[in-house]
Each structure stands twice: as C-alpha cells, then as structure tokens.
C-alpha cells in the first residue's frame, strides 16, 4: 500500500525523511493501517469464539447438572411379606388387601431394613426405626403395595426388593448434600449420611442406572427421587402426532396452492404477508389464542394433548409453509412444462411430478418445524399443561383428550419445586429433550444430504 500522493509532490523540495525510506519497509501510516486490519480481523475471531464458548458453556452446564439424574441410589433388601399384616382376612383377595395402605407396607420395609442392617453387623447408634425408614423413598411403600396387589401369591414369601433411596441420601452421593447442610436439614441428618456410607460399603446400597427416570410419572414435591418423565414423553409424543397429522397436509396444501395455483392478486398477497407475520408472532400469543378459543369457546379439556397439538399446529404451520414453498420453487419449470405438454392436468402435474420431487425439502422443513414445536413451552403453560399429572393418558384417539404433561413444561414445572433434587431432574429432562431434537435434526440433515437434488 503505497501513498499515491508521493509521485505528485513537487520534486524541488525533497523531504529527507522520505528519501531514506525504502518501498520494501512499510511506513508509519501503512503500519498503522495494517495493524488496524489485524485488529479488525481479531475482533471478528473473538466474536466467533465468544459465541462458540457460550454454546459450549450452555451445554456443559446443562449436561453436568443433568447427567446424575440418570443414575440413582437404590437399596436392595429382602422383605418378608407378612400375610398377617397385609391380608388380615386371609382370603388372598386383592380387593380386601387394598384396604392396607402404604403406611402398613412402609412399616414392613422399615423392619426389613433394620433386620438387614443388623445382619450385616452395622451399628446404627441412636437412630430410631423411624429414622431408618426415612432413608428410603416414600415411594418405595407404594411400589411394594402395587407389586403385592398385582400378584397376591407373593404373600408370606420373602422377596428381594429394590427400593429407591431417599432424595437426600441420593443427593449426598451426588455431592448435592453435605454433612453441614444435612445438619441444618429437617429431612435428614449427618447420622443418616454416615449410615448410608456404611450401607454402601456393605453392598446394601448402591448407585446404578435408573430407567425409572424415563418411564415413571411425575412425583410429589417431597419425592424428587421418584419423579420421572413417562407421562411427559407420552404427552409430547401425542402432541407431535397431532401436529404431524394436521400441519403436514395443511401446510403442503397451502404451499401448493400459493406456489402453483394462486393468481397474483391482492388477496394472495394478503395471505403471503400473513404467513410471514405469523412466523414471527411470539409463541405466547398462540397460547392466548388456544386458551380463549379452544378451551373457553370450544370447550375442549384443559391440559389435554389435543389442545396442545392444535395450538402447536397453528404455530408450526407457517414454519412448514415457508420451506415447502422454497422446495416447490426449486423444482425447475421444465418439469412442469413437460408434464403439461403430454396432456397432464395442472393438478396431475403437481401431484405426480412436482410434489414428489420437492418431497425431501418438504420433509426436511417439516421435521425442523416439529423439532421447534417439541421444545416450545410458553403456549403450553397457558392451556393448563402445567397441572400435576400422575396418570398416564389412555390410548389414542380418546387418550388425546386425557390430561397429560409435555417435556418442556415438565422441565418448567420441576424448576418451580422447592427440593433441590428437582433441579437435577430438570437438567436431566433437558438432556432427554435435546437427544430427541438431535435425532430429529440429524434425520433432517441426512434427508437433505441424501435426497436433495440440485438442478
């Protein structure tokens, strides 16, 4: 970069400084400009590094908080199912045995744990039997009761029972609960934690993969250890099915009309502007629409996957229409001309030739639209999906009208609970959500790479 003005300068007054200067060594001004160039380039690099670091930080924080949710502390003890306690009438009739509540089962488990601890020769110090029961999840009694009621023949036998450990004990092994915090906690005590250490050493208690996290329903505020994603995953699947069944055909039909049939006039212009704007409307506004139209006006039930599915369909439609139109536009006109030339009608041209050729693009757009819908939370909050739902919804189609939860809403729900164990659950649920999203997006990418044609 030489200075152009040099040749124009009058020769009569030569400047000594310039004469000494070689063309091969940059002058001050050039050096400054080059430094500025390097700085500018560096800013760009820094911006990219910051953006990528933010991504890494986000994923790292979620994964490190959420991975422990997939492992859980279990206690494995032999429990003698005393027929005298569980079936007082002695008929072996499940209907009569149902009168024994979980409290009765809880006592049995407490007894079994005490016996097991004694058999292993562990000193429990000043702990009461009630303290011992507190080491095990409140859910264990309900599990045992369900197992016995399902199979009354178990009465009187001794079964090997795997119970969830209490959330605080589990938190101790995951580093969430410490001796100091336990001393201040009403729900646990340092003695319990020390006993837990001894139980692990004796092989009664251990930590392992917890499939229940993926299949069990939500649990109440005091039992984070028993909370699972079963209902939420089913609810999300139902909603995605509704969105797929409605948004794909409607979106394709609308795009085909706008791209292939619609005359260019004000009316179709209005539809186009409309679709562009709908894609940018904040998602919570769709929630308001769902609440006032589907629930208040049409009387559909709250918390039902059908309402969530309908709201998400309306939200996803513009996001499917836009890539579908692009895919249709990418099919070269010569294909249409050829079909029309051999006598096909316009509709035949579209259904036999244009649409099949555009299908990879359409499906890619649909999958990405579905992935966005799967992670959407705000509209679902307004249509009542935050409700605490423990019962699995029925089989489709009537199951679509049963109350259910959804993955992102379940995550939100868990962040609002008091017990710190739910933060781990929420992060774990996000990992599940992200895995679904990764699968869907990978499918979309593969579809695009393999089938997309460049003309």
């Amino acid at each position, binding site marked *: *970069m030489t200075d152009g003005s040099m040749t124009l300068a009058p020769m009569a007054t030569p400047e000594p400084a310039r004469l000494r200067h070689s063309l091969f060594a940059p002058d001050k001004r050039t050096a400054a400009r080059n430094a500025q160039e390097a700085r500018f380039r560096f800013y760009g690099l820094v911006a990219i590094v*910051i*953006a990528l670091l933010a991504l890494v930080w986000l994923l790292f924080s979620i994964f490190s908080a959420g991975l422990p949710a997939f492992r859980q502390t279990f206690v494995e003890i032999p429990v003698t199912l005393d027929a005298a306690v569980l079936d007082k009438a002695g008929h072996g009739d499940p209907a009569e045995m149902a009168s024994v509540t979980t409290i009765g089962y809880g006592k049995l488990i407490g007894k079994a744990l005490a016996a097991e601890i004694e058999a292993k020769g562990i000193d429990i110090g000043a702990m009461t039997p009630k303290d011992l029961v507190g080491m095990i999840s409140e859910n264990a009694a309900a599990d045992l009761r369900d197992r016995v009621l399902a199979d009354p023949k178990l009465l009187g036998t001794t079964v090997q029972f795997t119970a969830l450990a209490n959330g605080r004990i589990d938190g101790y092994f995951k580093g969430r609960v410490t001796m100091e915090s336990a001393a201040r906690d009403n729900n646990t005590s340092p003695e319990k934690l020390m006993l837990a250490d001894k139980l692990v050493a004796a092989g009664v208690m251990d930590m392992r993969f917890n499939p229940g996290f993926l299949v069990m329903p939500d649990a109440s505020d005091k039992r984070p250890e028993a909370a699972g994603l079963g209902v939420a995953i089913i609810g999300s699947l139902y909603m995605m099915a509704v969105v797929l069944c409605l948004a794909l055909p409607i979106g394709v039909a609308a795009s085909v009309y706008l791209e292939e049939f619609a005359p260019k006039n004000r009316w179709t212009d209005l539809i186009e502007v409309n679709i562009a704007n709908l894609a940018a409307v904040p998602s919570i506004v769709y929630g308001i629409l769902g609440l006032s139209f589907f629930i208040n006006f049409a009387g559909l039930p709250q918390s039902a996957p059908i309402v969530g599915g309908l709201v998400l369909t309306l939200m996803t439609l513009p996001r499917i229409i836009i890539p579908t139109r692009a895919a249709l536009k990418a099919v070269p006109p010569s294909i249409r001309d050829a079909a029309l030339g051999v006598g096909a009608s316009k509709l035949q041209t579209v259904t036999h030739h244009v649409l099949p050729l555009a299908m990879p693009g359409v499906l890619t757009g649909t999958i990405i639209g579905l992935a966005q819908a799967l992670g959407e939370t*705000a509209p679902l909050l307004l249509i009542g999906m935050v409700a605490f739902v423990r019962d699995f919804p029925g089989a489709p*189609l009537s199951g679509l009208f049963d109350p259910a939860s959804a993955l*992102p809403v379940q995550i939100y729900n868990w962040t609002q609970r008091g017990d710190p164990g739910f*933060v781990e659950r929420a992060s774990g649920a996000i990992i599940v959500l992200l895995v679904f999203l990764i699968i869907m997006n990978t499918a979309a990418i593969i579809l695009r790479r393999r089938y997309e044609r460049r003309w």
Partner: protein
Amino acid sequence: MSLGLLFLTVLALAALAYAIGRRRAMATVGGDLRKLHSLPTFYGWITALWVLVPVFFVAILWLFGEGFVIHNSALTHIDPADVPADSSVNLMMADVTRLAEGLSVLAAKGSDVAALEQDIDGLKIALGEAGVAMGNDPTPSMIAAAEAVRGTAAWSRIGLTVVSLALALAGFVWGYRRISPEFRARNATERVSLGLLIVASLIAVLTTVGIVFSLLANTVHFFRIYPATTFFFSATWDPKFGGGSTLGILPLVWGTLYVSAISLVVAVPIGLFSAIYLAEYASRRVRGIVKPLIEVLAGIPTIVYGLFALITVGPLLRDWIAMPMGFGNSSSTVMTAGLVMGIMIIPFVSSLSDDIINAVPQSLRDGSLGLGATPSETIRQVVIPAALPGIVGAILLAASRAIGETMIVVLGAGAAAKLSLNPFEAMTTVTVKIVSQLTGDTEFASPETLVAFALGLTLFTFTLALNVVALVIVRKYREQYE
C-alpha cells in the same frame, strides 16, 4: 360411537366409495375405457370425496359447537343464588364439569348413579374413592347441571354419529348416481381439490383473525371494567385477588425494554462481527463448520436457556459481580435474563447479516480494494454502508424476538414489577405477567385475569410493528441489487 371409531368408519366408507365408483364407471361403458370422459380412478375419487368432505366439515363444526351448547345447557340449571360469594359461575362450572366426569367414571364402574345423586354424602365418598377431586361440595343444582352436561354430551355424540353416517351415505348415493360416461369426473375432482387447497391456505388467515379477535374482544371487556388511563399510565403493578388492584403496564414495559436492550447490547456486536468474519475472512472450511454451530444456538429450546439462566448464569452473576459490588443479592435479575437472551439471539443477528453481507455485489469490494483500501477499510466504508438497511432489519427482527421471548424471562428475570435503573435487580416483563395471570384456575370476569389479554394485545401490536418495519426494510434493500 366413539370419535376414533366414527373416524375409521367414515374412512372405510370413503374407501368403499372409491372402489365402487371406479367399478361403476367401468361398468357404464362395458369396460371400454375410451368411452369414459376421465380415467376411472377419477370417478372413484369424486365419489370418495362426496363421502368425505361434507362429513369432515360438519363434524368439525359440530365438535366446536358442542362445547358451547353443553356449557349453556348446564348453565340453565345453576341458580345464581347458589354461587358462593367468594367464587364465581365459571369456577362453579369447572366443578360441574369435574362432577360430570366423576359421575361418568362411577357409572362405568357399575355404581348406581341415580341413587347416589339423592345421597350427597355418599356421592362425595364415592367420588373421592374414584379419584375425582372437587373444589366445593356438590349441591343439588350442581348435580342437575352435571346431569345436563352428561345428557347433552351423550346426545351430542349420538347426534354426531347419526348425522355423519347419514351424510356419508347421502354423499355416496349422490356421487354414485352422477356417474355416467359423460360425467367430467376429472374436472370435478380437481375443482374440489382446488377448493380444499384454498381452504388450507385460508387457515393462516383464520389464525390471524382468531388471534386478533380473541385479544381484542377480551381487551375491550377488560377496559369496560378497568380504566384504560390507569392501565397505560400508572407506574405501579399490584394485582390483588379480591379486587382493588392497580394494573399499570409501565413497569412491565420498562422491564421488557431493559432486558431486550441488554440482550441486544450482547448480541449485536458478537453477531455482527461473527457475520463479518464469516462472510469476508473465513475460509470455506471454517465457514462450513462454524456457521451451523452458531445456528445451533437458535435451535435450542428457550426452556433450556431459561434453566441455564436459573442454575448457572444467575448465581454466577450474583456471587461474582452483584454481591461483591453491592448491587443486590438476587440471582434473578435483568442482567441475567438479558445476557442469556443475548446469547440466544446471536444467530438471529449473525445469520441474516451474513446473508445480507454476502448479497453485496463483489464489484463494490473489488472497486474499493483496487483503490488501495485494506479489507477492513473496505468492509467498514463500503460493504457495511451498503448492507446497513438489511443489517438494521436483522437487528429489528432480533429485537422483536427478544421482546416476545417468555421462558428465559420467566426463569431468569424474576416476578417483581419495578421501575429501576439497576440491572442487578429483579424486574419483570409483559410476557412473564401474561403467564402468571393466565396459569392455574382462572376466571374470566375479573380484571386481574383479563389484563393478560390487554398485555397480549400490546405485545402483539409491538412485535408486529417491528416485524413489518424490518421486513419492509429488508425487502427494499434486496430490490436494490437484484
């Protein structure tokens, strides 16, 4: 007949109609295809469409009208004097619906519902055992209303089944009788198909109409029972259940703008510089890897960012900046939400700006470089000014994203409505308040609930205006170089 079964039956009828229509068309010409106006499949299709389409539209209208009719039939049984002072007709209707469901559950179990209805205490116990929770104890008028709900619902289902099947059969007979060699089956099929395509594209318009109507109607209702001047100009947001609330939007708008401003301060420099680097400096390979990675940020659900703000960024800012420097001790702050939202909208700024910078003609760059400018001088003095309208459009789109964002602020910004300059204080936004006023058992007569619709309308108008301006700018700019 259950909905699923009805649906399958009608589908099966349509399939049958297709087969019969096709065969009938062939039969009319004695198997000589040349004498038919259209291919035989079109005769099948049009017959099937005659079965499907009328049933489809009638069933949709029926299902939407059903809830309305059931609600009104139950309402006639409720005596306004029966409604407790601290409750409302709407809450009572929720109980009636639950009661009706409970009665159906009991009936399905084989209990004697008629006898139980005479014995309210027994009914309460039976409902409790069936797992149906009631807000209030059932009263005779509620039981009557619940019975009306059940009765109307049952009749409505029967009516829907009868009407659908009758329509399907009528459509089939009508379509069947029209089949003749001269009948232009292809043209008819295509006309109906085109009609269906138009209906599908109208759904987008209907959605907009539905959004505007549901927001407007409830907002008008709100302003009838609450003064608009207080809503727009009061600086306090203090909802009280039981009346006497002050619902001023100003603190919410302030919180929204503050959070969005911080997020733009984070996202615009980062997004813009990455876009410039990717478009002007990066090699193809780097670009091919980095661009999708940055776009991953846009594909992550907002609830993930919300949790990130809640468990990582919030405590970090509190422990390292806010507390040591004495700005505050809350982990949900404007700063937390703004920072995390800034990360989220980086790709909105960078991707669009990248496209726009790439669309600047190469000749402009070549001219500038040829005159001896360095690449950075070219970018700053030629490329960016040329791309400026598009970049402004991209920033406006990102801003509208930030204003309408919900989950990050719900989890990261807090719930206290405040007018303050300190970014390390908890503040709240319009979207947070929409969520908090509309979740749970709501009752659509009080200003505390209806205000959410006025907030929603404000939000909708605001983001719509931003989007339209952004789109107009982007479009105008694109026309310049094409």
